């Protein structure tokens, strides 16, 4: 099994991934059905110099109507990063336009390459003797400023700041994503797909036996018995625009029949009052554990999970326990999960059932949140202590 995707396999992998999304009706017929992938496209590098992905043009008839980003580096986590339509990808025309722009800046260069200066945003890097002399953002042709000095946290870049995806990904996340990447490539090497040699996108690629099937989905119930009880969870809207943590804690405690008001929980969490509310500072994320245990007289054993994977949520739901989920700037609770599998080979789509306290005084139930499009920072589980 190759560690990275070989460039000569880019169009085949892209065709299979895009065809699977067509089969699942995730991608619309226009412009994808019957589209061709005439070349492996444009290599796009990380700022640290490693090859990250290829941007592959998707052509319908004679028109370049769309493009797909196909990962080469395993740390991206999966071969297909995105499929975009509405904008064509014409590498040659882009380089010509960028070169004209670079000349207007009066720089001399011998090499031009595409870089993900703020993944997945693209820029053109102009080099001379291997050293950068200019970087221009694709499309706007704005000069991308040099890397900023500073002591910010990884993966929290400022506006229009260049940063390296590969250098800033935490090592454990990188390793996990590499594992996912290898698993996905193994699927492409499976018996059913080994013989697929194509550069065409079609929902019929996999034959008449292919279909989507929901193989595993589960929601919180009154008890662990899934067969004879109803779904048992309620959404609580946050009482102020900054009390998502209080509302999330309230939802979790409500599940265990601890009937606290959100105002009281906000007070315990140090989030002020209805008249003068505040959010929870990142420096106090551990307070959620303390408050859950305090408000239940330690009947609940709470745990904070850093950078939770899908499996962390899945195992909690299987144990019939809700989970508080922190994403950048927000908190919600998770009350279910689903894994859709595209047959006959396992192309997996993962989703979470999210009880979201936003908008204020209302809240929504998000069914389903695409797990692969969100950043999960912290999760909190709470286990009833048994005697």
């Amino acid at each position, binding site marked *: 099994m190759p560690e990275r995707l070989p460039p000569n396999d880019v169009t085949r992998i892209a065709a299979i991934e895009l065809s699977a999304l067509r089969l699942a009706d995730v991608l619309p017929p226009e412009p994808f059905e019957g589209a061709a992938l005439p070349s492996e496209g444009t290599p796009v590098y990380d700022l640290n110099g490693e090859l990250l992905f290829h941007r592959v043009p998707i052509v319908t008839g004679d028109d370049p109507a769309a493009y797909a980003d196909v990962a080469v580096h395993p740390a991206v986590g999966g071969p297909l990063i995105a*499929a975009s339509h509405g904008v064509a990808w014409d590498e040659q025309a882009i380089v010509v336009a960028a070169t004209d722009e670079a000349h207007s800046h009066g720089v001399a260069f011998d090499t031009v390459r595409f870089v993900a200066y703020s993944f997945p945003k693209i820029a053109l890097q102009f080099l001379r003797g291997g050293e950068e002399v200019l970087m221009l953002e694709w499309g706007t042709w704005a000069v991308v400023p040099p890397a900023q000095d500073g002591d910010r946290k990884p993966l929290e870049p400022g506006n229009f700041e260049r940063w390296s995806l590969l250098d800033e990904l935490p090592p454990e996340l990188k390793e996990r994503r590499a594992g996912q990447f290898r698993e996905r490539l193994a699927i492409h090497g499976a018996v059913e797909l080994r013989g697929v040699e194509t550069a065409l996108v079609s929902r019929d690629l996999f034959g008449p036996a292919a279909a989507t099937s929901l193989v595993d989905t589960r929601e919180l119930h009154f008890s662990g018995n899934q067969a004879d009880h109803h779904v048992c969870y309620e959404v609580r809207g946050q009482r102020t625009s900054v009390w998502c943590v209080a509302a999330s804690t309230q939802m979790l405690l409500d599940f265990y029949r601890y009937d606290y008001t959100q105002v009281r929980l906000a007070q315990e969490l140090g989030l002020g009052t209805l008249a003068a509310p505040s959010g929870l500072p990142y420096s106090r994320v551990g307070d959620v554990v303390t408050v859950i245990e305090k408000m239940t007289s330690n009947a609940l054993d709470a745990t904070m999970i850093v950078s939770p994977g899908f499996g962390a949520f899945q195992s909690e739901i299987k144990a019939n326990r809700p989970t508080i989920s922190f994403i950048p700037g927000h908190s919600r609770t998770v009350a279910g999960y689903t894994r859709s599998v595209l047959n006959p080979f396992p192309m997996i789509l993962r989703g979470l059932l999210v009880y979201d306290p936003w908008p*204020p005084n209302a809240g929504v139930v998000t069914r389903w949140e*695409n797990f692969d499009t969100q950043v999960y920072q912290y999760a909190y589980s709470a286990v009833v202590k048994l005697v």
Partner: protein
Amino acid sequence: MTETARALLRHAAEALLRQGTVGDELVRERGRVREPVPVLGPDGEVHSFAVGVAVGEKLAGLLQFLPDGTLMRYASFQRGRDSVAEAPEAADWLDPKRIRARAEEHLRPHESTRTPYLTFDANPTRLAWLVPVVSASGGERPLLVAGTSVFEPSGGGIGGATG
């Protein structure tokens, strides 16, 4: 936003609805897909698109798509199966005139508003309309409108804009 892009998003939303990927039986049978609305990020660029699904005058839910067409989430306002009785009015989320008028109930003396746009507060899942409020001296402050709630953008921390 081009008409082609609008049509593609509407198609994707319709397909997800009719297949039963999102919504319950009531929404699948009576839900109507509304026009996609761009969700702008703090940098003014399009972060995603929100597509409302209405049953009559009620907003059953919102689909949120990334610019490449990937479904990011479906947020349901339903509080009970096959019921939209407690869902908000669609106009509270989709009619810029009503949203602007709601913000104008919170103006200070000599303030006026500009055209609102859909954005988010701190995280893309926290959708809200931003109504720019202009004072007599020309100063500007933002007001956010999320359904019937009107507030100023949040401060720091979880639930706030930054750490």
